């Protein structure tokens, strides 16, 4: 990309979004997780989610195969050769959320403490948020005739009562802990510095995809755990740079409208649009 094009786009480019000052989040450390799934059970109970007994639950067990309309938090197992790790999957509460950028009427919004939450009032069920999210987090209630978008909201209501999210509260090994994003980043770097041999030297979520409020430390490469993307740019950034570039202040559309009208006016005066063939 030559510098002219770059500077041209830069003039419309969105500034990199910063985390809110009161941003909270979670830090999950794969070296501490034992796969007890207390967090999965606690999340279901705290959010009144129904059990997911289809699939390999066989009607007896609540065994979701991943995040879905009945499951906001799940522990998956990565196993390959001698290497294995658990990984906790839930909404990453991105700093520059793709889903928020996508939503037409702001049903998904980034609210207090930077938590990304869904409001039934203005959702039309278009599922554009599902297209946008790089982590495939928002799930749609396919089995309902009044479907909602289902995803982790960091137990907003519990936070309002001064409690922690259910998952971090119940974890018996503090594999997932709750705190402000700043504190959690500090703690993550402290662990990386103290035991560099235990971890992949990266805090996933620090800068990836614009940064997230849910951070990960891992002892196996992050791609193995299902983290597909490492781009630094927030997902909405490029699309919005283009859209804003074209529509900024609505100047271009109005100019085009004016031009079209003017041309047609001139043509009509010239008498060009006859029916002669």
């Amino acid at each position, binding site marked *: 990309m030559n510098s002219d094009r770059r500077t041209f*786009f830069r003039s419309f480019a969105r500034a990199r979004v910063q985390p809110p000052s009161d941003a909270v989040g979670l830090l999950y450390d794969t070296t501490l997780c034992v796969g007890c799934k207390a967090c999965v059970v606690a999340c279901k109970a705290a959010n009144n989610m129904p059990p997911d007994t289809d699939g390999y639950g066989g009607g007896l067990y609540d065994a979701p195969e991943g*995040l*879905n309309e009945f499951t906001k938090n799940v522990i998956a197992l990565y196993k390959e050769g001698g290497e294995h790790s658990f990984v906790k999957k839930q909404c990453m509460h991105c700093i520059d959320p*793709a889903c*928020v*950028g*996508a*939503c*037409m*009427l*702001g049903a998904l919004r980034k609210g207090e403490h930077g938590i990304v939450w869904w409001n039934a*009032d*203005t*959702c*039309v*069920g*278009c*599922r*554009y948020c*599902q*297209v*946008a999210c*790089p982590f*495939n987090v928002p*799930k*749609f*209630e*396919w*089995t*309902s*005739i*009044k*479907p909602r978008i289902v995803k982790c909201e960091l137990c907003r209501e519990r936070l309002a009562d001064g409690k922690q999210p259910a998952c971090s509260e119940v974890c018996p090994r503090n594999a997932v802990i709750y705190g402000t994003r700043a504190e959690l980043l500090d703690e993550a770097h402290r662990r990386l510095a103290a035991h560099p041999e235990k971890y992949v030297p990266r805090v996933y979520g620090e800068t990836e995809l614009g940064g997230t409020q849910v951070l990960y430390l891992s002892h196996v490469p992050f791609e193995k755990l*299902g983290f*597909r*993307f490492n*781009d630094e740019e927030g*997902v*909405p950034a*490029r*699309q*919005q740079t*283009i*859209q804003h570039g*074209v529509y900024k202040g609505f100047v271009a*559309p109005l100019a*085009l*409208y004016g031009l*079209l*009208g003017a*041309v*047609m006016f001139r*043509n*009509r005066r*010239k008498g*060009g*649009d*006859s*029916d002669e*063939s």
Partner: protein
Amino acid sequence: MRAEAVGGPILTRVYKVLLGIGILGVAITVWRFAVGLGASTALSDGYPLGIWIAFDVVTGTALACGGYAVALLVYIFNRGKYHPLVRPAILTSALGYSIAGLSVAIDLGRPWNMWKIPLYFRSWNLNSALLEVALCIMAYVGVLWVELSPAFLKNARFNTILDRALIWIIALGMLLPTMHQSSLGSLMLLAGPKLHPLWNTPFLPLFFLVTCVAMGYSVVVFESTFSSIAFKRKRETPLLGNLQRVAATIGVVFVTARLLDLAVRGQLGFALRLDLYGMFFWIENALFILPIFLKVLPSAMVLALAGALFRFDTYLLAFDSGPGWHYFPSVAELLITIGLVAFELAIYIAVVKRFPILSGAAPAPAH
């Protein structure tokens, strides 16, 4: 040559078949609302958008860009001789866009909130490309039916008012598609890294716009040809030939541009892979280049197919939610789409027979 109603009976055998297919589609739509999207479609969290969006809306509106494309030619480039093609093109566009709107209402999970899109302006997320598409399309449907209204309304006063405002309405009818057809391209850019590099270009909006113009001309060509034959009118062969040449040229220019763009982005490697993506990429390109070597009608059909494939690929093939997800439309999705298209054809035929849409009353001369 003034436009005239074609006349003749509407309820022919073919017509009844179309109605039958349409009614089947309606019945299945009722069922879809009764059981929900999960039970009636093959959509999933990995493929939240399916053919109702990729075909009915994205491709359907592009195919309905005839009105836009011909209006550009007649009113901006001042080619008055194409004027007889305008009204039928506007009718096709009006129907196509209305069906697209209906498809959206069927696809939405919470359609009872749909009215909030144009009216809840305080909730508008101005960053959302989808909002812009939705509002633009809603406005454009209105503009199209207004542009078409002289064919239905014989009220003289209304027609004079309309006549004076016509320039601004027609200008709007060219502005709006420019905006939303390009935005339909930028829609998929929000998938970010989930969109395959062969389609993931910042020029996607421009490519969508340019190909929709080509598709618009192509649709006008074969809709005009089929109408002439079906209703025994004189064929506008030289006019159509010119149109198709323009469209085919656009096709070649588009392919050149996208290859250049790939090279500049450093992604040509993906085009040389023997995977599904590489394969479909080249099939698209072939279909866009071929028309310039073909005769008018096959050229139009191939070009329309090329544009449709390009859109299908952008929305369904290039979009990758990760391993483990599959999508192929369910029987219900297919039948509802087919039913809607059948209804669109049926309404077109009925309108053309009863209202002054088509020009050229003289029957085809004997060979």
